């Protein structure tokens, strides 16, 4: 780890001021479970870390206009256990339970999970070139180790967004609140993520002096249920090889408000409007599930060594669709 100064302001304004003053040499730190790894491996270095830990108002989960407001410092473990995440929101608790290990869930935050950097082995190793590190070359797309790389193309960068929380949050139509020097802005979570075509060095639209402060979930849709399935190499402490968040309501046996988002397959969490359209207004059945899976993966362009992810994706999507059909429908 290269030396840095650590500052712990107690207000959001101060955090933003310190970030802005630090230019590119300051970085926000919340739980640190991602950033400390990058620092220790000397993938990145900063002169100043600005801790968000002192900003108490970001720690809570609040009921708000029929929905929920989740502060950016809410830990993954809180999401796992909070009694308010039931009914339609249960998918988020389910996904939280699949994150990393209990220790990391206790330390890691919601905001940090959404802002996590890619897990690509070439990004994470200080001795290998990578477009995200300003290099001219992407050795990952030639490597035999592609289980955790994109099957939806890059372009240029084939790292994937590994968040387990993003797919269910997208399924719940979440919004994010961003605070910056010129005030607050809110945008749909879907617009928060940005692939390499926008800026290969970043995964979202957050500016260097902006802070993700909260995620807002709209009021629960009646009878809507979702599930999150995650394929991985080991059961604990692993990122998704492929994951899927699927949810819908059933209206007289017909699917309504279908949502289908894949994780671990593209540089951004990958929502499939095509698959959602296949599901909408249909009776859930294995044949329908298979059609939806095909629609979701129709555009897949796997690399030379990760075509198997398409196959796993098919199985996972079909199973998730049928699991939602079988789940009990309460409020």
């Amino acid at each position, binding site marked *: 780890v290269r030396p840095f100064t650590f500052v712990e302001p107690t207000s959001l304004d101060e955090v933003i001021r310190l970030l802005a003053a630090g230019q590119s040499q300051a970085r926000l730190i919340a739980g640190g479970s991602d950033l400390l790894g990058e620092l220790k491996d000397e993938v990145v270095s900063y002169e100043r870390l600005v801790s968000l830990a002192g900003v108490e108002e970001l720690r809570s989960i609040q009921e708000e206009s029929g929905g929920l407001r989740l502060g950016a410092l809410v830990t993954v473990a809180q999401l796992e256990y909070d009694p308010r995440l039931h009914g339609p929101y249960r998918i988020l608790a389910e996904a939280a339970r699949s994150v990393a290990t209990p220790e990391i869930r206790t330390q890691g935050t919601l905001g940090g999970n959404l802002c996590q950097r890619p897990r690509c*082995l070439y990004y994470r190793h200080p001795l290998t070139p990578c477009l995200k590190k300003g290099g001219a070359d992407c050795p990952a797309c030639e490597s035999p180790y592609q289980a955790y790389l994109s099957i939806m193309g890059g372009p240029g960068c084939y790292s994937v967004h590994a968040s387990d929380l993003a797919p269910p949050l997208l399924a719940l139509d979440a919004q994010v609140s961003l605070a910056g020097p010129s005030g607050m802005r809110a945008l749909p979570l879907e617009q928060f993520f940005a692939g390499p075509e926008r800026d290969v060095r970043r995964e979202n639209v957050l500016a260097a002096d902006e802070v993700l402060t909260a995620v807002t979930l709209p009021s629960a849709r009646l009878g809507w249920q979702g599930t999150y399935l995650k394929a991985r190499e*080991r059961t604990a402490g692993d990122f998704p090889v492929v994951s899927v968040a699927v949810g819908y309501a059933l209206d007289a046996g017909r699917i309504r408000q279908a949502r289908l988002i894949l994780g671990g397959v593209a540089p951004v969490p990958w929502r499939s409007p095509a698959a959602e359209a296949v599901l909408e207004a249909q009776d859930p059945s294995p044949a329908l599930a298979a059609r939806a899976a095909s629609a979701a993966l129709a555009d897949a362009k796997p690399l030379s060594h990760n075509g198997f992810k398409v196959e796993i994706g098919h199985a996972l999507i079909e199973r998730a669709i049928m699991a939602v059909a079988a789940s009990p429908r309460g409020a």
Partner: protein
Amino acid sequence: MDQELAVVGVAVPRLGLAAKVRGEARYTADLKRPGMLYGRVLRSPHAHARIVHLDTAEAERVPGVYAVLTHRDVPQVRIDADLLPLEPVLRFVGDEVALVAAETEALAEDALRLIQVEYEVLPAVFDADEALRPGAPLVHAQGNLVGGKTLALERGSVAQGFAEAAQVFEATFHTQMHAPVGMETRAALAEWDGDRLTVWKTSRAVHASDRQTLARVLGLPLEQVRVICPNMGGGFGNKDEGRLAVLVAVLARRAGRPVRIEYSRGEEFVAGRNRQEAHMHLKIGVQPDGTPTAIALHATMNAGAFVASGMNVTRRVGQGALYLYTCPHARFEGVTAYTNRPAGGSFRGLGAPLGHFALEVLIDQIAAALSVDPLDYRLQHHVTRAGQPGQRRTPSDQILPDEPVEGGVPFSSNGLRECLLAGAECIGWRQRRQPNGVATGMLRRGLGLAMGIYKGGIGREGEAEVRITPDGRVELAVGGVDVGQGSTTVLAQIAAEALGVPLERLDVVMADTGRTPPAHVTAGSSTTITTGAAVKLAAEDAKRQLLALVDGIPQAFDPGAVGAARRGDIVGTARVTSGSREYLTNAFAAHFAEVEVDMRNGRIRVLRYVAAHDSGRIVHPRLAENQVSGGVLQFLGIALREELYLDRQRGVTLNANFLEHKSTSIVDFPPIEVLFPAGSDPVGPYGAKALGEPPVVPVLAAVANAVANATGVWLRDVPFTPQRVLQAIHEQGKGVR
């Protein structure tokens, strides 16, 4: 029925357990000496390079930095045949360039950044076959073929055996480079007192490796070097290399203060010793009824930049093929190549699990082709107590080698049949579906089995000293290391049994060259059988002296008699070469796995595991059970997911950390049942045989064979990741939608 013993065979509380549970046990990296500095290592960013310019001036000027060490400052004396302490040529990414000793680790690390190195990057080679081609970049000047030749071992004539075969089966297999992942990383602390040196180190060989190497390389008389290994947090066949001890000693001398170096986890993965990658081709000829007529195995091993254990890893690849099945003609050929990868070395089981993987999978394939139950096939063809057919070659007055090639020699004991039957009973083998691949649906279950044969420590020298003090205490001193397997307890049990005293009377001293007689490397599953034999004899020697002293045979033997007789200590000593002139002594095992395979996800779940072992009489049932289940756990991870990923352009190890190296966590482990159905052995002390490594030998094949039973798909490439499983399902035409 074995004779009942008082202490041997009893699961007594493990010695030193309370201190470990309370967190009081001290490991090398816990130790501090007055004025101690912290050392860090600068490592090569290139797979193959020559240092053309090296400037340490700036690093040396940092306040708090006491010494900087480069190849210019170390003795140019070889540690191993292929290894100097530091060299201007670097052979893998992570190879040692320079060292710094400073007041804190952070200071030392900052100083490393100030060392300026200019490298001439040399062409590198990472693949064993490429390394052996003419014109390949030379990793070492003498050539990339380790030892300069192919290792070839043959019994009978495989040419004749294949000519006699009705059918020949063959297949190629691959096993990955993987790491032992001891929880404790390597560490060493050196302190000089004038020209006397003390080194505390994570070690498997304080006498045979570290002390000898230090004295030789530093030009010191042996008696001026003392090496101590405190508690070890995982040996697994690693940590015997001398480089770290030499470098920390030179660094401490230069700094004029004690210095301690502790590897980071990343360094442990890269600069430790890993299992060599193996490509294997196996060919078995059989008669119409399946009886093997010839077995021929060829292996190409990728040793990386250095070989710490000579050809031993390679030699062990052949063990199963040469000896597990009764067969007059068997041959093993192994070539070992230097490449610009992190160094290979010894790791629990050496090459044996690799060769057994190929052998036991192809045997299952033969059984399937002949419509024979693989259990029945093994019951019929496994090597028996009579050993292999053929002529004995070892002169009759010599102790037999424990890694046999020749026929005509019986085993001292062979419990393969007992292991097969007990394991099959326990897992419910007769419910196994036949033939392979008849299961349907998305989740398919199957049962598989594999056997193992392993030599253990025979033919080595063991020494022990048993001291009875006037106050009636007994002190047992042996130079080996308790690498975490519990040998302190087991050797104390043997001494207590031989003396006829309660275990509480004993103190055990191990792994300190200042206080123990010389010892071999703690390796090859040899401690119980070889050191144990010496302990038994030394205890009997002490007892004899004591009985002579008290003039006759007392009612109850009492070490307190020493005090009563007003004499000094009684010291019993023994030095033995273990083994026998009549028999081979090997350990045996049969493992059984039940798996469930997700045909669309490619995911294997191991549901149950049964490991039946013949390790002779079991000295400590609970430790033995832990030894087996631990070995199985370690290799289930290696079977299913663990691998070191190497970037083939730069030679960088991409996943040298616990997150990306997928060491299995406890949630992925199945229940493991451990059985010891065989009895006592006539050669080993109290009938014991080897146990340390045998548990890892059959695991890869047991899992692969269970997958074949569930799916009809043969896995020949380890680890069996979802990617490889799906690929095999498709290549072998078993895909489902």
